[in-house]
Structures are given as C-alpha cells and as structure tokens.
C-alpha cells in the first residue's frame, strides 16, 4: 500500500515537472496503478497544457530535414517563423537599432559603476515614453531545468497605460489592457470581453520596468556579480537585496541601462526567471491597442455598470439620497467626473490631481443598514471618532491579470472605508498615507488617524506563547513564494491557533471555532488583538504580531492569549 502511494506521488511529481514519467516507458506494476495513473492524467487535463519552449518549431523543422521528409528544393528556404503568430519576435533588428539610439542620446556619457547604477537606470527610464517587449516567464527547478510558463507581449507607457497579451502558456489568448479611461480583458477561449473601471487598477504586470527600477532604488543593497549576454545584448548582473524577501538578480543592459532579466532566489527548489527577449521603445502605445473594440461573436460583460451624471444633484436623484459632503475638491485636485453605479445605487466621485493627473482618488458613497465589519487584513484607524478600515496595498481579484505570480508586484493604491449616519464611505486612491490624511481633512473636515506601527500594544496577553524566530523567518519565505497565504490574515491565524487548542490532536473536518466568531479588537499593522466570541472557546483573546516583516506582506504569529473567564 505504502509503495503504491509513493509510486503515484512520484508519477504526479514527474508530470508536474513536465518530464516524461519513467512509468510511461515500462509496464505498470498492476492494473490498479495503471488505472490510477490514467485518472491522474484525466484530472490534469483540466489544466492548460505547458507549451513548448522557444525554438521548438525550428528544432522540429531541422529534425525533419535530417530525417528525410524535407527536400531542399529551389528557393524554399524561408524560415517557418514567417508563419508564426507573433511577428514581434522578428523585430529584434529594429529594436536593437532603437535601443542603440536611445543609449547614444541619453546615457552614453554616464559611467556605470555600482554607486550610480540605480541613478543610471532612473535617468535611462526618464527618457522612455513607452516600451514594447516580449516577456518570457520561466521556472527553474533544483536540477537547473528551465520550464517556460508563459510568454507575454507587453506594451506599457509612463502614464500607467498598458496592453498585455498572453501569447504562450496557460492563459494563451488572454489580453488585458488599460487605456486610462477603461480597463478590459479579452478572453479568446470564452469569447468574452470584461470591462472594468480604469481606476483603481490593482494590477501591475510582472517585470514592469519602472517598478523594477523603483524596487532597486529602495533596495537595502545592490552589488555587481558578473556579466552576461541576454538575447545578444551585453548585460551587467546585479544582486539586489530588497527591503523584505529574498535577494534576487537583475541583468541590466550595458547600453540602455535598463533591466532585461530578473531572477528570484531559489526557494522550495524553484526559481522564477523573467526575461525581455525583445524590447523596443516608442513615443506611445499604438492607438489600435488602446481602443476598446468588441470582436465579432464576443459577449461584453460590464463589471460595474455605471451612469455618468453632470452634477451631484443628478447623482442623488438616481441613487435616492443626496450626500452631505463638500462639493469642493481638495486642494491640488479637481473633480474629473461623477457617476452612479446603477445596480448598487452607489455614487462615485472621481478626483484627479490638477498638476499632472497622476494622482487619482475615487470616493464611493452608498446607504447601508449592515454593521461595520472591517476587513481582516486592514489596519484599524479613525476618522474623527469613527472606526475606519485602512488598507495600504489594495489587492483585488477582479480584473487582475493572472501570471504575475510572486512577481505580480505590489501597488501604491490604498483604501479607507468607514460608516457614518447610515452611509458607507470608501475612498480608494493612489496617494501616500500622508497625502490621504490631508485629502480627507479637506473633504470632510476631520482628521484621519492611522495607528503608528511599532508601538507597544497597550494591553499585554495573560499567557505568552513562545515562538522560534528562525521558524517564523522560514515561514515568511514560504509565504513570499505563494504558500500558506492564510498566514497574512490575523483572524485566520487566530482561528487556527484557537482550533488547535480545542483539538490538540489535529483538526478533522471543519474548524471547531468559526471564522465569523472572531473579531478584530485592534490592529495597527504590527500588533493585533482578536476577540473570540464563542462560549465553547477556552480562549477569549489572541494576541498577534508581525515578527519578521512589518508591512502588509508580513506574516502574523500568535504571541499570547487570554484564557476564557
């Protein structure tokens, strides 16, 4: 029995590594195992296939030449690449020319020592208006075997607009774009086109050049570790130690001073490698990519059906209430537009910074009868004396692009939500927390108080729970690579802790304590206290702390509890 379990597990591991299992070359030990392996393949067919790596076409054509079926006759030497879907791969010559031109114009005289390497990258990126690249995302296993997970055709500009098409891999055919007015996703297989508001857009595609340079600028340490050639380009290899998480490497083009490749540290025997195989620079993203068109046969799904209105009174007439807020935009901002979400009767006011239009804020107002329940991942603050939920790095599944993985990156969007006089207010903005405080003061005349992190909790636990910081550090690394995301939710961590206290032998089936029976008493982003509202629970309060990293990517650890009276 044990042997069968092991064989089956190894078989699954081999398929997951995209390697031919040894069992495919010899008879199965038993009909039962044969049937189980067949079942594994059937289940796995629910996944999209892993497509071959770059060069497969030319390899096969070359193989056919050697084995005979192809006769080289006359002028029949055109490459099969002619017929390949993505013409972009062929643009390398033009791209190299453009890269060289930019290099000469902007950076030729810059030295490229370690001390100013980030500055050189920043200067370099300053001169870029828009760029286009073919981005290959691959994993490398412990044996050094590289597997290409997906290939993206990326267009992006400095205004935050982008057009990302998956041209190989699991999401082949998926296109996501944001033209600053609308965001949309085209799913070729499902023939559907989903439309979203352009802001807030929590997605940052993997290996966005501007974001990478910003990460490098904020790194604790950067050192040069070698030189390499990527897609014919000479690069300098840098090792970056970021503020949090594992060190990683970036390959910076010696001429353009822009990153061409990023590779994560090895964790759980897996590394991620992202490479721009082909980069070109342009003045703007082509118009045809930035205009929303509905292909024949596609169904349009509007995720937020909204009606634009010309005044707050008109919005009030549709929503059925007139919001009691200042109609003056906060200093430095102007009201861009007002709309009403017709299904939810939510009024939305869009603000935009007057100077450059980069900073944006959306204020949503709606009537509510339900009590205020802050999100478990939020910091709890106040506006005036009203409890307020503050989320400093908004993550939203709606309309995000799959495939970013651990490199999807964080964003600069924060959200503030509170209730007052049977109305719920939610402000989502790409403004710094300090700027947000001023914005709210201008709009509502009240102070936003964000609890200061690192402050010692006012109340301490009656019983302290010991922990091993090395174990916690390893768990943090594991969570950074996508495992156990529940460790980022203090309520979930408290639920597991209380449940294990109630069932020390392990949890079978449902947790003995319900998630909804736990409430957040306080959370300043570093320390949190969770109250347990269940008469069966032996614990009344759980005390948690972000021990390893004190931001929204840091795991929570139970450091103490109060027993039930």
């Amino acid at each position, binding site marked *: 029995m044990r042997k*069968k*379990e*092991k064989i*089956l*597990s190894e078989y*699954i*591991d*081999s*398929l*997951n590594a*995209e*390697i*031919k*299992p040894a069992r*495919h*070359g010899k*008879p199965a030990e038993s009909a039962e195992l044969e*049937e*189980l392996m*067949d*079942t*594994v*393949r*059937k*289940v*796995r*067919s*629910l*996944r999209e*296939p*892993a*497509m*071959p790596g770059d060069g*497969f*076409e030319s390899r*096969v*054509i070359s*193989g*056919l030449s050697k084995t*005979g*079926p*192809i*006769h*080289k*006759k006359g002028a*029949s*030497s*055109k*490459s*099969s690449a*002619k*017929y390949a879907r993505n013409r972009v791969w062929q643009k390398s010559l033009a791209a190299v020319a453009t890269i060289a031109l930019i290099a000469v114009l902007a950076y030729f005289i810059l030295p490229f020592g370690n001390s100013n390497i980030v500055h050189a990258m920043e200067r370099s990126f300053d001169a870029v208006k828009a760029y286009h690249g073919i981005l290959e995302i691959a994993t490398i296993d412990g044996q050094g075997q590289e597997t290409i997970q997906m290939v993206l055709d990326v267009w992006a500009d400095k205004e935050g607009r982008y057009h990302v098409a998956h041209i190989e891999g699991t999401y082949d055919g998926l296109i996501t774009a944001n033209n600053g007015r609308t965001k949309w996703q085209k799913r070729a297989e499902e023939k559907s086109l989903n439309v979203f508001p352009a802001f807030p857009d929590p997605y940052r595609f993997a290996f966005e050049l501007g974001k990478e340079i910003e990460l490098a600028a904020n790194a604790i340490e950067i050192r040069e570790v070698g030189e390499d050639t990527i897609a014919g380009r000479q690069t300098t290899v840098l090792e970056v130690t970021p503020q949090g998480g594992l060190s990683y490497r970036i390959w910076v083009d010696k001429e353009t001073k822009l990153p061409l490749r990023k590779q994560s540290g090895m964790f*759980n*025997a897996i590394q991620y490698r992202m490479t721009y195989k082909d980069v070109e620079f342009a003045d703007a993203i082509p118009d045809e990519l930035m205009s929303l068109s509905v292909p024949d046969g596609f169904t349009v799904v509007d995720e937020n059906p909204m009606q634009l209105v010309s005044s707050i009174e008109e919005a009030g007439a549709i929503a059925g209430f007139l919001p009691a807020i200042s109609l003056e935009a906060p200093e430095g901002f102007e009201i861009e537009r007002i709309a009403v979400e017709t299904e939810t009767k939510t009024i939305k006011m869009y603000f935009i910074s007057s100077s450059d239009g980069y900073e944006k804020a959306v204020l949503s107002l709606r009537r509510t009868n339900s009590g205020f329940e802050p999100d478990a991942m939020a910091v709890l603050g106040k506006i005036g004396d009203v409890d307020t939920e503050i989320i400093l790095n908004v993550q939203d599944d709606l309309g995000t692009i799959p495939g970013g993985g651990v490199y999807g990156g964080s964003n600069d969007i924060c959200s503030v939500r509170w209730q007052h006089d049977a109305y719920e207010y939610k402000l989502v903005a790409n403004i710094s927390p300090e700027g947000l405080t001023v914005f709210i003061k201008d709009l509502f005349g009240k102070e936003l108080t964000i609890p200061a992190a690192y402050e010692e909790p006012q109340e301490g636990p009656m019983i302290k729970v010991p922990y091993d910081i090395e174990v916690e550090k390893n768990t943090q690394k*594991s969570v950074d690579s996508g*495992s*156990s995301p529940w460790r980022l939710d203090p309520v979930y961590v408290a639920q*597991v802790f209380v449940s294990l206290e109630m069932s020390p032998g*392990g*949890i079978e089936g449902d947790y003995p304590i319900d998630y909804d029976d736990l409430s957040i008493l306080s959370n300043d982003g570093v320390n949190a206290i969770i109250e347990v509202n269940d008469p069966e629970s032996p614990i009344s309060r759980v005390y948690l702390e972000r021990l390893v990293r004190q931001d929204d990517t840091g795991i929570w650890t139970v450091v103490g509890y109060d027993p039930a009276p």
Partner: protein
Amino acid sequence: MEEKEFAKLQEGDRESVEKLFASTWKDIYRFIYYKVQNREEAEDITQETYVRALDHIRRSDKKIEKHVDFLKTVSLNILRDRWRKRSRRGTMVGIESIDPTETAVEDSSDIVSQRELIRNALDRLSEEQRKVIELRIIKGYSTAETAKIMNKKEGTIRVLQYRGLKALAELLKNSV
C-alpha cells in the same frame, strides 16, 4: 488544399512543409499533451507525428483533405504503439494497421464533456480528498507544499491523494 500545394508537400518541398507545420503544430501538440500530460513526451511525439505523417503523405496516393484530423490520427497511432510496446501482452501495431486517412479522431466536444465528467466527479469526493487532488494535480504543488497548506504531514497527503484518486477512478468508471 489545392492539388498543386499537396503535390509540393508530397515532394517534400521545405516551404510547404514549414507552412503545414506552422499552421497545425499547436493543435497537434495540445491534442498529444492532453493524452500524455507532460511537455517532454508531448514535444517528442509531436515531432515523430510529422516525421511519420510526411512519410505517409509521400508514399500515399490519397490526397489528405483535413490535415489536423489526419495528423491527430497519426499521433494517436504513435501513442497506441508506445503504450502497446510497454504492455506485457501487447502486440506491436504499425502505422498502416490504422489508416490515418480513414480513422475518426475524437472530437473536441468529447474532451469538453470528459472535463465536465471529471469536474463532477471531483465535486463528489470528500472535501479533503478533493483539496489534495486540486493542489497536487491541478495546481501542481509538491507534497511538502500541499502538506503545509493543509497543515498535515506529507505521509497523510500521499494517503489522501491515493484514496482520492481511487474514489475518483470508481466515480469516473460509473459515469461512463
């Protein structure tokens, strides 16, 4: 395909072969991958499919109308050959024993309905068995990662996986 184009293919004209390959390989590769569920083998069989198919075209008098269907049948023959080779009592079956120009290839709607059957069967497993199978096979996590996510030991994950697959095999047998 026009007579002229087909004749060029029969002659082994490189441009015609490249054109055929570029326009069909993704469909063929996906079809094979669906059967073998790993990239290494799928690449290998895709390559062999074109070698055998072009050889067949060169030696055959029959004009091939539907290239993708024809190529899928050739690849099925290769798969059957390989599986028969490793079967204890199996016999070798060559490409000529199943005529690729006449054999019907399973339709993509069959694949869709099989996926539906699998999803339904998965839904009927116990919560833990379903979760292990989803994490290990559909999401591709290792045993160690799955154990961490489910807060269980690796040995327990292997047992749950084995039992889940046995239950699933039974459910799939009964749903056919």
